[in-house]
Every structure is written in structure tokens, then in C-alpha cells.
């Protein structure tokens, strides 16, 4: 009885917090439904007086969003997979040992992501153009984003690996598994929370990435939605409702998917493992 009441109160508080936090998202939604002059009205209208539902279909058609989104998905998936492939193992080793070399590697990993993309793009562009990678612009972008986001991934996933008891891996080794196998079947599943969440974050980041794609993908057919949005958002735009509609279409599905995915962060993954 009391428990259900605390639960209800907590739920209400959670909803209030979410409402407060989600205001910018809400604003994106309502703006997309507003008419041009309503957007700049004073005082601002919290609910569109005459919601323009047709805007979504209109923007989808007009901007050819299907292709843009597909490109975004391709780039984001590629980045996520590559980052996870390269980063997971690295994070694991950095968590498993504790010596000066690990310190150095960790330091390098952190340092290597300090420059903002806008300052990295020139040298990367120059480098890629020299080795001819620009001929495969989506690949080039995937590589560039991966390099940018991997340190993030490594540092986070490392923290997850830290929580996996070393003894479990040892048990797997004694049970006849190789290091590779033990890593795969024991350590990885137990660190999956951190890996999953970090991969989600990487995916979302790559999904919105913009600086590299804009510079390295000249062909519209290959550009991701972020570049499509940018093209739409010139300094002199009247189409804020369309832009926000675009952004809505861009953001909402992915947010919905990950709201569901991140639920798998469950506590107590390793409980019961050790005495």
C-alpha cells in the first residue's frame, strides 16, 4: 500500500522532471506545427492555435528525406560498428591491467579527441584527399567520425569492464576457453550495459554528425540528414516550421528506438557471481 503510493509520487515527480527537461523537444514539435507568424509571436504560444499537420508529409516529400535518413543510418551504423569493434577490445585491455603503459594509452586516447571537429576537418580532408579516400565519401566520413568518437567510447566502456570480476574470466579460462572466447562469452555479456549504452550514444552522435559529412560528401545523394537540414537552414530562412518538422522526423524515431533500447540497463548483472 505505502509502496504503491511512493511509486506513484515518484512517477509524478519523474514526469514533471521529464516535462521540464523535454521543453526544447516540445518546442521543436510545436514550432513545426505553427504557422510562420505564430512562431515569433509575443507572448509565445505554448500550443499551436492551428496545427499544420500536413507539414510533415510536405517536408518529407520536398526535401527527399527518405534518402537523407537512409544515408544517416548508413553512416551512423557504420560508425557504431567500427567504433564498437575497435573500441571494445581496447577498453577491455585498458581495464584489465594497471601499469604505466596503460596510463600512457589512456592518456593518448583522451588527448586524441580534444580538437573540435571544425579544426580537425582541414587536416583530415587534406590527408584523405591525398590517399584518395575522398572517392568513397561515406567511408571517409565513417572513418573520421569513428576516430572522433572512439575515445569517448573507450573511456566509458572501460568503466564498465572495471565492474566485471576478474575471477569470472579466470573461471572461463580454466573451463577451457581461450582468452578470445572468455572475452566473448563471459566478459562481454557482463559489460553489455556499458557497451550498449555507449554504442547507442555513438550511434546517435554519428546520426547527427554534420561537420565532416558537410565537407567530405559533396554529392547530395550520399549526404546524411544533418547536411540536408543544414542546407535547409541558411541564415535567411522563413521556413522554421518546415525545419522543425524536418528535425522532428529526423529525431523522433531514433529517440523512440533508444528509449526502448536503453531499458536494458539493469542493475545487478554480476550479483551472485562471487561468494
Amino acid at each position, binding site marked *: 500500500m505505502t509502496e504503491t503510493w511512493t511509486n506513484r509520487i515518484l512517477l509524478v515527480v519523474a514526469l514533471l522532471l521529464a516535462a521540464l527537461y523535454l521543453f526544447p523537444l516540445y518546442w521543436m514539435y510545436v514550432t513545426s506545427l505553427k504557422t510562420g*507568424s505564430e512562431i515569433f509571436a509575443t507572448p509565445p504560444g505554448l500550443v499551436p492555435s492551428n496545427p499544420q499537420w500536413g507539414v510533415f508529409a510536405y517536408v518529407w516529400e520536398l526535401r527527399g528525406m527518405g534518402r537523407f535518413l537512409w544515408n544517416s543510418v548508413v553512416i551512423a551504423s557504420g560508425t557504431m560498428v567500427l567504433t564498437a569493434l575497435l573500441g571494445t577490445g581496447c577498453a577491455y585491455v585498458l581495464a584489465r591491467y594497471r601499469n604505466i603503459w596503460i596510463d600512457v594509452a589512456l592518456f593518448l586516447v583522451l588527448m586524441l579527441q580534444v580538437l573540435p571537429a571544425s579544426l580537425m576537418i582541414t587536416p583530415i580532408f587534406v590527408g584523405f584527399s591525398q590517399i584518395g579516400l575522398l572517392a568513397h565519401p561515406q567511408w571517409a566520413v565513417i572513418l573520421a567520425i569513428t576516430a572522433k568518437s572512439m575515445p569517448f567510447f573507450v573511456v566509458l566502456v572501460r568503466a564498465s569492464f572495471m565492474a566485471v570480476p576478474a575471477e569470472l574470466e579466470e573461471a572461463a579460462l580454466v573451463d577451457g576457453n581461450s582468452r578470445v572466447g572468455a572475452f566473448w562469452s563471459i566478459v562481454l555479456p557482463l559489460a553489455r550495459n556499458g557497451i550498449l549504452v555507449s554504442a547507442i550514444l555513438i550511434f546517435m552522435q554519428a546520426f547527427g554528425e554534420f561537420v565532416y559529412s558537410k565537407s567530405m560528401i559533396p554529392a547530395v545523394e550520399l549526404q546524411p540528414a544533418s547536411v540536408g537540414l543544414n542546407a535547409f537552414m541558411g541564415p*535567411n530562412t522563413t521556413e522554421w516550421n518546415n525545419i522543425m518538422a524536418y528535425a522532428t522526423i529526423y529525431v523522433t524515431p531514433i529517440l523512440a528506438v533508444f528509449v526502448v533500447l536503453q531499458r536494458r540497463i539493469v542493475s545487478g548483472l554480476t550479483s551472485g557471481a562471487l561468494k
Partner: protein
Amino acid sequence: QDEVTITIWSLDDANQPALNLAREFDELEPGIKVEYREIQFDDVVSEAMRAFATGQAPDIIAVDNPEHALFAARGAFLDITDMVANSEVIDPANYFPGPLNSVTWDGKLFGVPKATNTIALYYNKDLYAKAGITEPPQTWDELVEVSRKLTDPANNVYGLAFSAKASEEGTFQFLPWAQMGGGGYDNINAPGAVKALGIWKTIMDEKLASPDTLTRGQWDSTGTFNSGNAAQVISGPWELNRMLEEAKFDWGVALLPTETEGGTRSSAMGDFNWAIFASTQHPEEAFKALEYFASQDDRLFPEFGQLPARSDIELPETGEPLKDAALKVFLEQLQYAQARGPHPEWPKISKAIQDAIQQALTGQAEPQAALDTAAATISGILGN
């Protein structure tokens, strides 16, 4: 036979001229294939530089006029003086002096103006009537006076809107004032320029314009005019279509007020120029494209709403009385429009001016001191 490919970079999208003209040219010339890339306003120069440095520059590019010299002075653009001389389509004499000046460096032509624009004063006739004002202001003082009358905080109405943003837009808006006051980018602390900045400061201090003027561009400032939250706005002809659509009041356009009654007029000169990169493999074909674009200049206004940079083209009536009236004023204002620069270090010069504006308007320095600093910086850049 070998088809030649030429690449064109421009910021125009499907509703704007460059993309359409490029397509047409592609169709028209069987031997030439045109690849068109749309680039955002903010990225034109950096993309171009990067591409040029790695040998991947396009053949033709559209750049904003104050940045033309940046490339021209470094020999990145092709000198087309001779080609123009032999051309039957392009004649420098047909262009307004401002735009023409911006494609010229060291006496040579490095491009062709793509279009042009300038700024003037839009005013809300309804609000004028309400405040009992009949005529738009002719001088700076009158402008302040009128703005005071129009400002009505209770109804969220400011007397004036403009942009003093710390970007090229700020320079674009301020430079005409400085020029009307007898100054210029190379003489930015002329007494008239100081006075102009003083006027701006008065406007800001008295909240005759929104404090956000400091961080808002012209487009957003005009938005507040359109929604009735500002009684006047200083902006350009690119606003006409939006205003027709959004403004639910009667409005008009006047020339920029001058320092004194009948004083020197000046205005800003905006919009892009066409240029051919010096690295092009196909200078002839590229120039042919420019010729085609120039030959279609008369379509710029009726089809795309842009003003051609040419004095020899008669603009047709649009049938929108408000628009036609406004256009007249803009065309007159264009007579006084001056190019920024041209100077290869223009961004730095402009930055010095922006800094001065912002310093003065935020009260960190007096207008005189702020402009003196800017003048010192600029003269350092100009190498005097």
C-alpha cells in the same frame, strides 16, 4: 567526342538562379557537362580554400563580394580581363560601379557580379499613422526622434530594428553610416563615423531597438518588423517577398537617412560574384558559362527576385504595388552602394569594425575610443 566537365559551386538552391542556370547551360552545351554543388553561405570560403589547397577546386565558384579580393589577390582566381574584352556578352560598362569594383583587383577583372543588393529603411505606415508621423526620417537625428515616438514598450514595439551583430552583417549595416559621415573602412574614426556610432549607441541605450540587436542578424531583426514588434527596420530587398507574405500592415521603404539634411548618401552593397578558379583545366568552357549566366541577368528579378548588378536592365513591373514602390527606392539606393574593400584582408578589417561597434554599444568603450582602436588595427592591416 570528349565531353568536358566543369564544376560549379554556389550557395543557390533550387529556387535561386545559379542552380537553374547551370542546369540550363548543361542542357544547352552538348560538349559540356556541368556538375553543380550547393554550398552553405558560411562554408563557401573555407570549403573553397580547402579544395584549392588540395587541388580539388571547382572551375567556377560564387563568392560573397567582400571575399572576392581574398582569392583574387592571391591569384587563385583567373584573370578574365582579356576574355571579357573579347566577349560579346559581358561588358563592364553595363554594371553598377559598386559590384564591378568588387570583382576588380589591381585594375584587372577577376570575376563577374552575380547579382546585387543594398539596404534601406522599411517603415510601418500604420504605426507611423498611429504616432502621427507622416514622413520617413531624412536625417540621423530625425531617425532617433521618430524612433522615440514609435517605441511603445507596453505593446512590445520598438522604434527601430537593425543588426549590430559581431559579424559581417554588423559591418554591412554600419559601414554606410560611416561613409555618409565622411568615413570609410580606411578612415573609420572620421568624426561623422564617430557620430554615427554615437547615434547607434543612443538608440540602444534608450532601448529604441531591442537589445538583441547586438546578437541578431538582419533577417531575424526584420522578422520583428514583420510581426509588428518594430516600427522600422534597416534591411535589403531580399526581404520583400517575405514581408509581402507576413506583414499584416501597410509599409513603405525610404532611403537611408543621412547625417544632415541633403548630406552625402551611401549604402551597402551586397550579394555574390562569379569567379573562375585559376586552377581550372577548362577556362574557355568556364567563361562560356559565365557568359551564359550574364546573358540571363534580365531573368534574375522576374524569376528569382534578385537584383541584377547591371544598370542596363530595366526591371519589369511585378504587379505588386508595395513591391514595385519599394523596388524603386532600392534601385535609387543602389546608385550610392559602395563595395566593401576590396581588400584581401577584408575579414580582419571587418572584424575590427565589428569589435568597435560592439564595444561602443555595450558601453565598454566610448564610440570615439572604440573607433580609434579599430582605425589603428585597420591601418596596421592595410600596411600604413
